[in-house]
């Protein structure tokens, strides 16, 4: 199904690198610089230096990078296939839970109850044996497989039903929201065996590295950056390919694409599953950095917030989504610290302002201005990938 790009003489990767959309190389460059600068600064610079990055900031940035990857995954489906998922937080949380289960098993007998096999919350609930779905999570490769498989499988099943029955537009948004809400309720139950409303926490170490150690935190930060860069490349690869063109066609005129002979549902299903996997990986990297995963990650409000990151940055621009995630989350950290009461006004205002006045987001609007500027200078307009303005209902 994945068609290669129509440039026969070069390998796919080379053609991808040369064909990166506007700003893509700069974006990857910034990620690269951050991946080198932050660890070096944290390790070698004195604390008094203005360029010193303290460890708490490293973890905070690592968290943002995970959010950025989540935003990227939403942009892939919303910006390029017109699928507005209000339940992407569910895939993020499932990835996070898979990682959390691995970290729980790593605690071993260092828990409060000292049970070598059962996590503390199970001992507390008087469980005597490990539920079957916890088996294998002490093996790191298996846990990582699950990080990909569980969100991917859920997205596959959900998308299979939804896209085949042509549930589109707001209906799809509403049922994705119902999905994450159902999962929220389910994970709140103690009987589920995922720690109930406390979730999974008190993690000790990952692959033998102490999670509290600065080195581990730096490692996780760099790993998150690498994941973000790879995720970005995958998204570019998909959107630049012929498959990506079909997706854009689906976004702008789904029925017409179907009438042209494309199996719309398969394209959507593919991109939905890829997006869910990216969200799951983001969740898996997020959990060891914040040290907890609980059912509130499933709440519909979280998932909607992700959409606004993308909308602020710019739909269908990929790195714009990353920018949006950083800006909004930085704003959140700033406001909840300095003006806790004003944060919801700000966030709510951002939703309204962005949809009313910045329908293309920061990056999309900037692109339009640059275009106008170039047109004035050159008097001609080069062909550009269409930027979404209106979607099918």
């Amino acid at each position, binding site marked *: 199904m994945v068609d290669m790009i129509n440039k026969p003489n070069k390998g796919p990767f080379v053609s991808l690198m040369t064909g990166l959309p506007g700003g893509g190389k700069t974006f990857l460059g910034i990620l690269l610089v951050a991946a080198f600068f932050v660890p070096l600064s944290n390790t070698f610079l004195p604390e008094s230096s203005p360029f010193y990055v303290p460890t708490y900031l490293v973890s905070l940035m690592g968290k943002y990078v995970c959010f950025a990857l989540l935003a990227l995954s939403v942009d892939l489906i919303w910006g390029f296939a017109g699928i507005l998922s209000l339940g992407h937080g569910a895939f993020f949380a499932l990835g996070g839970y898979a990682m959390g289960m691995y970290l729980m098993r790593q605690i071993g007998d260092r828990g409060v109850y000292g049970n070598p096999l059962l996590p503390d919350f199970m001992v507390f609930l008087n469980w005597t044996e490990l539920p079957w779905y916890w088996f294998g999570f002490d093996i790191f490769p298996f846990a990582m497989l699950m990080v990909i498989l569980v969100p991917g499988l859920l997205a596959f099943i959900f998308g299979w039903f939804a896209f085949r029955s042509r549930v589109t*537009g707001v209906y799809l948004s509403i049922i994705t929201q119902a999905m994450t809400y159902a999962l929220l309720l*389910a994970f709140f139950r103690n009987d589920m065996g995922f720690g109930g409303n406390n979730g999974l926490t008190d993690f000790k170490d990952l692959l033998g590295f102490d999670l509290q150690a600065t080195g581990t935190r730096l490692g996780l930060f760099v790993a998150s950056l690498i994941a973000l860069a790879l995720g970005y490349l995958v998204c570019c690869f998909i959107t630049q390919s012929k498959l990506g063109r079909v997706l854009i066609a689906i976004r702008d005129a789904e029925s017409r694409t179907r009438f042209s002979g494309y199996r719309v549902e398969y394209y959507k299903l593919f991109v939905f599953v890829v997006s869910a996997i990216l969200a799951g990986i983001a969740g898996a990297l997020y959990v060891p950095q914040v040290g907890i995963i609980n059912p509130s990650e499933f709440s519909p409000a979280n998932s909607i917030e992700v959409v606004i990151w993308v909308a602020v940055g710019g739909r269908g621009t990929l790195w714009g989504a990353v920018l949006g995630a950083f800006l909004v989350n930085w704003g959140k950290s700033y406001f909840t610290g300095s003006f806790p009461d004003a944060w919801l006004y700000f966030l*709510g205002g951002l939703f*309204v302002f962005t949809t009313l006045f910045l329908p293309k987001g920061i990056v999309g609007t900037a692109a339009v201005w640059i275009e106008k500027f170039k047109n004035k200078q050159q008097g001609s307009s080069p062909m550009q990938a269409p930027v979404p303005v209106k979607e099918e209902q």
Partner: protein
Amino acid sequence: MLSTLHPFIQYCENPVTPMRITIKTIIAAMLFLLATQGPAFADLTDAAQGLLSKKYSEKIQATEAIADFGDPRSIVLLETLLDGKLYATKSDGRLVSRKKVSDGYQITDILTEEDFGVVKSGDLTKIRINNKMRGLIKDLLGRLTLLNEDPALRLKAANAVFKSRPKEMAVPLRDALAAETEEDVATAMRRALAALNFVHGETTTIKADALLILQEQHGPEVKFLLNGEANKIAALQNPSHEIQQFALSIETALARIEEKLAFMAVIENIFQGLSLGSVLLLAAIGLAITFGVMGVINMAHGEMVMIGAYTTYVVQELCRNFAPDLLVYSLVAAIPAAFIVAGLCGVAIERSIIRFLYGRPLETLLATWGLSLILQQFVRTIFGPTNKEVSSPEWLSGAWEITGGLALTYNRIGIILFAAAVLFMLLLVLRKTSFGLQMRAVTQNRKMAASMGIRTGWVDAMTFGLGSGVAGMAGVALSQIDNVSPNLGQAYIVDSFMVVVFGGVGNLWGTLVAALSLGVTNKFLEPYTGAVLAKIFILIFIILFIQKRPRGLFALKGRAVEN
């Protein structure tokens, strides 16, 4: 002396006009008789002092005298005495109850409830009673409460007898039943008497008669009672033929009661389900209008409900401060107030934000979500983050007891009626007014409607206002059953969307059917799965249902909806 009580009661067994002879009138006569029989007591304190006597015969006389005063304090005194918790001070012979504190015992006068401070254990003597007295006191206590002036207390006493079934209560209970004039108290007494006869009856015939009365009763307690007796018989070595017959009739009675209980559980479930469905209907019906007519996904819908609930609170507080007499009706006044406040909010939202986003439903969704955050925070800033208390008026509290074991609370009934009324009004507006006609025209074909001279912009604003206003009225109802907090609306938003989508967009009947069927299904699932799992199943069901029928149960037909 006890025997002298009966003629008086029997005298009023068939009075010409129903009248209660209170225990006091009996006592007045008693006192006269007592005067000739032995040491008479001037008052309750005097009689209580008689308990200090060393002779049990004198103690018994005192006990009877205490009961005969029929004072509420008599009950307390006798109960304390029966429990062996009545003490006398050695110094001045006061009757007290004691309570252990760190440095001794805190003593309180049993009659005056006066505090005497802390004393040592050695300063008190316990008032001892023997078995004969114990039986007598129980008997007297039963009489005192069964013959009390307060019907509620008599009912309570009868139910207590039904639960504990002390054998010696049979005679006083029969007497009290004969004197009883209140029908519901008499029923309870009959039931208690039947239970007594059933357990302690001497012959199988008495027991069988009692069983006949009991099997007409329902409720888990009767089932428990019959089960206990059936087990007792099953444990017998060689039961006679008669007893075997009796056991069989118990079996049939049990089966009947089981059947009744199951039937009542179904009724109860349906009622609970309808009331939950009505809540869903109220929460969703405004959304059915905004979503159905305008295709606007209003994520701030829940906040309109919340605003309605807060309006109810404000109206209540205004009433409390300016017109305390009208406080009971503040809820009624809140209904139009909530409609207007939420409706105006809706019009303002439509004119300022939503009209710029027509044709872009996903953007509308995001903008209204942002709006909902702002509204929540706004309310939190004004009213604070804590729950506000909206009290239930007198006429909505309590329950309608249909039969024993089946009671429907008035506020639930009120919500069902209110939801029905709102739906009816809305249907009237949509079907019978020119505004409704224009609204339907805009739903079916916006461009055509505009060509016919309908001001679609005005219709949009009014429709959104109407939907929001109805949401506000839902808030009035929800303030009675839920916490009025800034997060009130959030709890209902997912449910409301599920109802609207399940029922079919733009169809009020669909919304009604969806809300009620989801509510009833939920309540029927709950006993098997628990509340949370029931909700999860419902969500999964709706997700699957939408796959099958993407436009809901009752989809609008025609080209117009195909966009």
